[in-house]
């Protein structure tokens, strides 16, 4: 696959209609087949690029080909051109390695303002740059594989294909990054699941076996001991089933972590429901859950079920680890910029008054099975997966989780989420 057959599309004479059909087939192929055969995907790409070039030569006013528009349009989630409808990032590069055009998926993933600058300014992975440089230096095509570890680990198959016979100002290289995240990581996630499950189930299972042996042997005729043991066995069995459930839901989140959910979610309703669900548990510890959400809070982009899970886990912890008789507060506010990503959003703080968390534990809380006090967490029925699930869901939402705590006073878990894009406006 080093050389790509039939580079006949480069002249840009294929009518747009064909390209549109190509896009439709491409989408259908992706949906039905899961992963496209690389050859087929390149052929489709050929059609699409041809369609794009057709477009491009028609509108070749400097900077308008996806350039000036991109900043505005990248915020809209409606694909506007055939090029933008492609799920994989596609980038057209000129002879000085400058980005001439980038589709929506590329702009979203790398940089909304990537058009016009050197490719290295938006996509600096050495493997990608070396593929593009090789093609700029005359190689017909080059393929490679890369992994981008942050913010969410993703893998791509990189295709850089040369465009011959093009006019001097026209694109010289088409760069396509075919998303391989699912294929490469699914295996790993399954392996993790099995390793975690078998490791964590070992001790409760051993306990069960021990009790069964005792019940069949020395305690056979001891009614009091039997009842006692059966109670313990029941709670161990319940813990095992909770563990499997939590591990499954963690894996489900992980599998889709690279796909950012974008449904508008009204946090006001969601947070009140969470507070209601946990109010019984709070009352049992003589605690109160207070919710404060301004009327004007904008909707966030997300997956309502998963966000419920996030706040349920956080409030559950606040109730579990908060001082008896104290209050738990949930407060949401709109913020100008989310730390690091810099985009607008909403911050939801879950505050408790409890023993607090020593600093060196804070960055480790989101590790699966990490518990500060194993015995204590176990006695309150914890599996140690709650915050791991929270972290992965927040990552999937491209949000942030921030933990502040003062030992002896309490903790604040703050979740930052992106505001939903209102379709149509702006």
């Amino acid at each position: 696959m080093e050389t790509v057959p039939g580079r006949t599309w480069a002249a840009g004479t294929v009518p747009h209609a064909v390209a549109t059909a190509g896009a439709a087939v491409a989408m259908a192929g992706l949906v039905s087949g899961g992963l496209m055969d690389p050859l087929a995907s390149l052929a489709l790409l050929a059609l699409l690029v041809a369609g794009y070039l057709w477009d491009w030569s028609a509108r070749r006013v400097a900077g308008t080909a996806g350039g000036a528009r991109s900043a505005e349009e990248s915020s809209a989630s409606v694909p506007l051109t055939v090029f933008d409808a492609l799920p994989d990032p596609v980038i057209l590069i000129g002879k000085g390695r400058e980005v001439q055009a980038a589709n929506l998926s590329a702009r979203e993933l790398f940089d909304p303002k990537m058009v016009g600058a050197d490719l290295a300014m938006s996509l600096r992975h050495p493997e990608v740059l070396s593929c593009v440089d090789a093609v700029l230096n005359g190689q017909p095509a080059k393929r490679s594989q890369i992994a981008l570890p942050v913010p969410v680990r993703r893998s791509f198959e990189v295709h850089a294909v040369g465009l011959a016979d093009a006019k001097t100002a026209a694109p010289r290289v088409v760069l396509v990054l075919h998303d391989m995240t699912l294929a490469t990581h699914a295996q790993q996630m399954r392996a993790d699941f099995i390793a975690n499950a078998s490791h964590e189930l070992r001790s409760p299972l051993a306990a069960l076996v021990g009790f069964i042996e005792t019940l069949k042997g020395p305690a056979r005729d001891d009614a009091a001991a039997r009842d006692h043991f059966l109670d313990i066995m029941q709670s161990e069995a319940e813990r095992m089933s909770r563990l499997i459930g939590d591990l499954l839901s963690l894996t489900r989140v992980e599998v889709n972590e690279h796909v950012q959910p974008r449904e508008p979610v009204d946090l006001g309703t969601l947070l009140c429901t969470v507070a209601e669900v946990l109010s019984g548990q709070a009352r049992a510890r003589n605690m109160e859950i207070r919710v404060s959400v301004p009327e004007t809070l904008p909707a966030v982009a997300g997956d309502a079920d998963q966000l419920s899970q996030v706040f349920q886990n956080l409030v559950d912890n606040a109730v579990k680890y908060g001082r008896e008789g104290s209050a738990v507060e949930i407060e949401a506010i709109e913020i100008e910029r989310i730390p690091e990503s810099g985009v607008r959003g909403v911050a939801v703080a879950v505050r408790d008054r409890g023993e607090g968390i020593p600093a060196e534990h804070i960055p480790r809380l989101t590790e699966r099975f990490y518990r500060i006090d194993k015995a204590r967490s176990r006695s309150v029925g914890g599996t140690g997966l709650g915050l791991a699930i929270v972290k992965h869901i927040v990552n999937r939402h491209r949000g942030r989780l921030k933990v502040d705590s003062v030992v002896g006073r309490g903790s604040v878990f703050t979740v930052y989420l992106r505001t939903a894009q209102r379709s149509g406006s702006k």
Partner: protein
Amino acid sequence: MAQDHIVKSFDEELEKLNNVIAQMGGLAEAQLAESIEALVRRDGDMAALVAAGDKQIDALERKVESLAVRLLVLRQPVAADLRSVLAALKISGLLERIGDYAKNVAKRTIALSQMPPMEPTHTVARMAGVVQEMIKNVLDAYIARDAEKADDVRRRDVEVDALNTSLFRELLTYMMEDSKKITACTHLLFVAKNIERMGDHATNIAESVHYLVRGENPEDERLKNDTSSLTVMDDNIPEQE
């Protein structure tokens, strides 16, 4: 008109300089990512490749130096332009150091891959994950000239320090439990040290970016105790107690 021409040409050369920095940054990121992947997978061959890859970063640093010197001598930039060139020089030096630390991690990984697997490796990888994000974000901040984003990077340094402390305790427990693990634990301690230093350098780059954009050094006190959300909580406490 002539003035315009000179200005434009300075910008073009500065752009070239920035492209090389971005490329260096990409290499440093990849070196770190690969050294950690080799560590987790206990892949000595991969680690050896990373150790050898360091030369590319060095070559790019020399390229930045010669471009920067050329700009300084021929254009004699002042004010913001001068700051840009100096920041580029400083940042390329720091990126080169980050590359060196990645090389050290790779070398330790070669040794570690011969020893039995160690649980705390996962904590090291976690720490590296935070540093990877810091490096990515600070490079993005440099490219976008975004001082706020650079400040966010500086705030994350405490996270790396906390992880380092926690890892240190974890490793001590391991060493006390089983003296046969002492050698491997020592290697891991040094790996963690290297990663922590990379985090420090990401923080230094963030300071340079702040200075570059704002023209003044960042104030430290405000960042060090960023407990804004806790203050809110403290305010509410009297009502409770």
